[in-house]
């Protein structure tokens, strides 16, 4: 038989036995019944069972005895096992009959993944057989020798005693254990057998949909994760980020328990994880929830998935019509549950994007799958729809219920602009966000529509049009635009119009448009000397340890801020001001060769000269321009001397300091995923989306998002509210994120969707953690005794280092973050020394 690693599952959507049976002491009745039988009598009964069948024997033996006790056919010394080979075969045949009955009951099940499982078996020609313990399996052992099928012991294998099913490695068959684990005499209820069938089918459906051909190692891990995740023994565990968990495995209790089961029971997974084969460790450590392309076991989804197999990705333009036709044909059979499953699946969206590479075609394929008409004439003057809170947003409701959004950067903040407003140019330019927001209570229902925006100085375009796909479940979309101030502003200001259009899925048909007219006025000019004066004041304020200064205020705050103050005071982090140059437009034009109104010229430190000047965005509040070096734009308007508030300065500092001490980032190849992760860590630790050390939000939440994994969240993005909020911010505002995510460049999307908690080397902004990191990095392997003594000093053993021993929180960071494990492994290559240092620091081996 084809064989796969053991997995077991029951779907959470059905009532299941919350206390899975385990091998235990046989009941008194059963033991007495067994002891009454002689060997000869038993042999005769077995013969009858094999010829008449078990139920026939039951009838013969107990026809006159009313309600008979069951025949004891299990081994009395270990009731998980049949008495002998004949019993085992008999059990297997009965189990197969019971499996067929259970499979039949699934066809009418109201839950789609259960109902679909029966249909999947039939349409995808999945063979179903029994999985039964052998009679000669070692008595009392935690593992059992199982045999597959109903005929003989061929292809027997050893597996966990609690195994419930097997999915074949070639994904063509399932083997289900249909008798109770603890006592093979006891049949399972049909519902429980059905649950095991569904679990086994889900593994088949997962891997068949994942790739054509043989599944990859990580796919098999994911398939098994899917099966185990919903088992009662796992499903009750928390999905919240748990800082107390060490860095070996996912850091939610639920996913950690599933990981530990697979790791302990599957030697191939253990070997690959320990050796970090093909980078599987990080993939497993960040895999906290099930995901896949056929989580509801739908044969229709499988057919749709299979229709992609015939086309290599990306689909060439010449093949696109055939591709679209094939998708349309397969999608025609989808039901609502299928479409919802596609909508919820990051994997499906990634698959579509892999096959078609521009937004128009992606929108078109999504619309084809969703059954949405494309390019249809807009409805004439749509009237406001009657409120139907439960119904998904319709296209007419969308077009009747949206408004344009316009915001400009003032240099220190973002200002909302409404019709008739006056704004000021900053650095000779306007940096804007223009888009659309839904005004009803409903988010987008998956409608494929685009928002296009531009700015006009009637009749000329002054910010070229950009478009953006309206997020499938979002409530707004916007694009960044920039306007260059004219050489001479007209009297009364520069009259501008922001135009927003809603486009159909073809990205050409304009369904609606709205304008926002406003006036941009000239900014005040200032001198180089004025800019330098403001910079000098800013630097003094940053380093001021009095209660009025930034260091002083940090010292009066919580532990994270105190550590930051300490790092600043000890020179572990260098903070300098950045201020706009007096000649910003000319500077940008000179440095970039031509004007760029999205940029401003700045200098860092206190001297405005070319050696310290650089180009950056108008709305920049701070920059980490190198390891341990931070620039903060405290002066938001040089002529007036307007400053960012101290609270904002501190917020920027806490955020940037995470970058400044993020050594793995500065040592990386600066790929988009490296950049994404350092931003994720910084936004998590600056508290923008919730207290960094708490998974659950306070009441009232005040913008806090829980750090709890939720597999029911729709795609796209990581499925945890806090991680999703950070992702959305980066997707919208960080220009490298959207293309890398949409195109899954170098696996960017795969990694981002699973990155739900930060993992870093110094999330606490600790001077001591940085000193220890550097000590390990500098170890050259020549004097381990001295090196270890220095490491131990940080833990409180032996002489303390100059900045003192690590605090409990700092030690927990080392234990809990995979970055420390990687750091030790990278810098202490000797296996024995590495093990010692890991042990000294409490890092999982």
């Amino acid at each position, binding site marked *: 038989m084809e064989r796969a690693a053991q997995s077991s599952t029951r779907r959470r959507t059905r009532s299941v036995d919350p206390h899975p049976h385990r091998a235990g002491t046989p009941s008194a009745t059963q033991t007495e019944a067994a002891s009454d039988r002689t060997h000869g009598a038993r042999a005769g009964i077995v013969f009858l069972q094999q010829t008449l069948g078990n139920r026939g024997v039951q009838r013969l033996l107990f026809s006159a005895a009313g309600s008979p006790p069951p025949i004891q056919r299990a081994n009395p010394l270990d009731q998980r096992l049949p008495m002998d080979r004949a019993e085992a075969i008999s059990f297997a045949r009965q189990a197969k009959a019971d499996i067929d009955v259970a499979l039949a009951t699934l066809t009418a099940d109201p839950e789609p993944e259960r109902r679909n499982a029966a249909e999947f078996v039939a349409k995808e020609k999945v063979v179903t057989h029994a999985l039964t313990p052998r009679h000669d399996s070692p008595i009392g052992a935690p593992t059992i020798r199982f045999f597959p099928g109903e005929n003989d012991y061929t292809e027997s294998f050893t597996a966990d005693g609690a195994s419930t099913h097997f999915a074949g490695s070639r994904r063509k068959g399932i083997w289900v254990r249909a008798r109770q684990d603890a006592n093979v005499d006891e049949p399972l209820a049909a519902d429980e057998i059905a649950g095991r069938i569904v679990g086994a089918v889900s593994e088949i459906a997962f891997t068949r949909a994942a790739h054509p051909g043989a599944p990859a190692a990580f796919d098999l891990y994911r398939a098994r994760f899917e099966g185990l995740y919903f088992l009662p023994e796992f499903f009750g565990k928390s999905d919240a980020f748990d800082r107390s968990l060490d860095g070996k495995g996912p850091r939610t209790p639920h996913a950690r328990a599933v990981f530990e089961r697979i790791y302990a029971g599957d030697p191939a997974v253990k070997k690959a994880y320990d050796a970090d084969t093909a980078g599987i460790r990080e993939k497993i450590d960040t895999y906290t929830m099930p995901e896949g392309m056929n989580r509801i076991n739908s044969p229709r989804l499988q057919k749709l998935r299979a229709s992609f197999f015939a086309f290599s990705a990306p689909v060439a333009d010449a093949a696109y019509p055939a591709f679209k036709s094939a998708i349309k044909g397969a999608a025609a059979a989808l039901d609502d549950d299928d479409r919802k499953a596609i909508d919820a699946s990051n994997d499906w969206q990634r698959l579509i994007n892999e096959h078609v590479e521009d937004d128009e075609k992606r929108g078109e394929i999504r619309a084809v799958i969703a059954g949405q008409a494309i390019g249809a004439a807009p409805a004439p003057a749509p009237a406001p729809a009657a409120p139907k809170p439960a119904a998904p947003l319709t296209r007419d409701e969308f077009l009747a219920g949206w408004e344009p959004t316009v915001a400009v950067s003032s240099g220190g903040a973002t200002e909302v602009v409404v019709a008739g407003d006056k704004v000021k140019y900053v650095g000779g330019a306007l940096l804007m966000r223009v888009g659309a927001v839904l005004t009803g209570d409903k988010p987008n229902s998956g409608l494929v529509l685009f928002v296009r925006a531009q700015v006009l100085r009637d009749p*000329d*375009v*002054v*910010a*070229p*049009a*950009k478009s953006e796909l309206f997020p499938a479940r979002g409530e707004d979309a916007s694009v960044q635009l920039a*306007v*260059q101030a*004219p*050489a001479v502003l007209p009297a009364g200001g520069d009259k501008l119009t922001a135009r927003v259009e809603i486009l159909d899925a073809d990205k050409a048909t304009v369904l609606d448009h709205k304008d926002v007219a406003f006036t941009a006025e000239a900014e005040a000019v200032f001198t180089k000397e004025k800019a330098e004066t403001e910079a000098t004041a800013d630097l003094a304020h940053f380093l001021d340890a009095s209660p009025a200064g930034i260091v002083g205020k940090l010292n009066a705050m919580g532990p994270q801020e105190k550590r930051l103050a300490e790092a600043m005071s000890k020179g572990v982090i260098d903070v300098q001001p950045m201020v706009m140059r007096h000649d910003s*437009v*000319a500077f940008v*034009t*000179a*440095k*970039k*060769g*031509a*004007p*760029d*109104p*999205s940029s401003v010229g700045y200098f*860092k430190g206190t001297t405005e000269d*070319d*050696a*310290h*000047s*650089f*180009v*950056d*965005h108008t709305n*920049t509040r701070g*920059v*980490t*321009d*190198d390891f341990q070096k931070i620039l903060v734009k405290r002066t938001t308007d040089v002529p007036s001397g307007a400053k960012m508030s101290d609270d904002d300065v501190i917020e920027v500092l806490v955020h*940037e300091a995470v*970058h400044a001490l993020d050594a793995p*980032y500065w040592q990386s190849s*600066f790929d988009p995923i490296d*950049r994404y992760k*350092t*931003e994720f860590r*910084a936004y998590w630790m600056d508290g923008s989306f919730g207290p960094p050390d708490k998974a659950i939000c306070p009441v009232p939440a005040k913008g806090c998002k829980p750090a709890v994994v939720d597999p029911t969240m729709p795609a796209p993005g990581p499925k945890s509210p806090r991680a999703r909020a950070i992702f959305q911010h980066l997707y919208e*505002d*960080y*220009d*490298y994120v959207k293309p890398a995510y949409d195109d899954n460049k170098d696996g960017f999307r795969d990694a981002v969707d699973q990155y739900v908690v930060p993992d870093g080397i110094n999330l606490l902004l600790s001077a001591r953690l940085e000193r220890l990191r550097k000590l390990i990095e500098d170890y050259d392997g020549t004097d381990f005794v001295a090196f270890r003594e220095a490491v131990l000093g940080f833990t409180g053993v032996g002489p303390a280092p100059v900045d003192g021993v690590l605090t409990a929180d700092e030690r927990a960071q080392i234990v809990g973050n995979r970055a420390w494990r990687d750091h030790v492994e990278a810098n202490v290559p000797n296996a024995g020394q590495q093990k010692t240092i890991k042990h000294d620091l409490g890092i999982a081996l």
Partner: protein
Amino acid sequence: MIESGASWRRHRIAGLGLSFEVNPAWPLDTLPLDGGTIVSQRLPDGAGVFVRYGPGQTLDRFLAALGDALTTATIVRDDVTRFLGAPARRVTVRLDRRPIPGPSSDRPTLLRVTGFAVHGVPVLVGYRMREDRAAEIEATLERVVGSVAPAGEEAAAGPGEPSPIA
């Protein structure tokens, strides 16, 4: 292609005696420079095409100003050529910004600029584009550069053709 469907029109640079094709869907900016003027068009993704002219707009001065404290400018190609029949130098510069954390992609930028003179006035014609977008956008930008012609003689002039300007 970016210019697909565009209704190009010709823009005359008064005082220089040159004109070039512009796309009305993109902003057309005219700004004073230290020692000259720049006329430029910006494309939606930050690319731009420009004509700089004036007594201070020499190629050497242009190249010396490129880059900043976070950005390195490297000349990757330098050719002697002719433009509108006049002796010219065409230089390609790559701008690499240090990959600091932040919202900007910091992808390398290419600047391709040709320096020549019109009646003794230094002129720079060129464009800026993201290196990773070059395959998509370069032909459009080259089209604009190639459209530069003496005002009034647009139909006859083109890159590499004899011109009365020199």
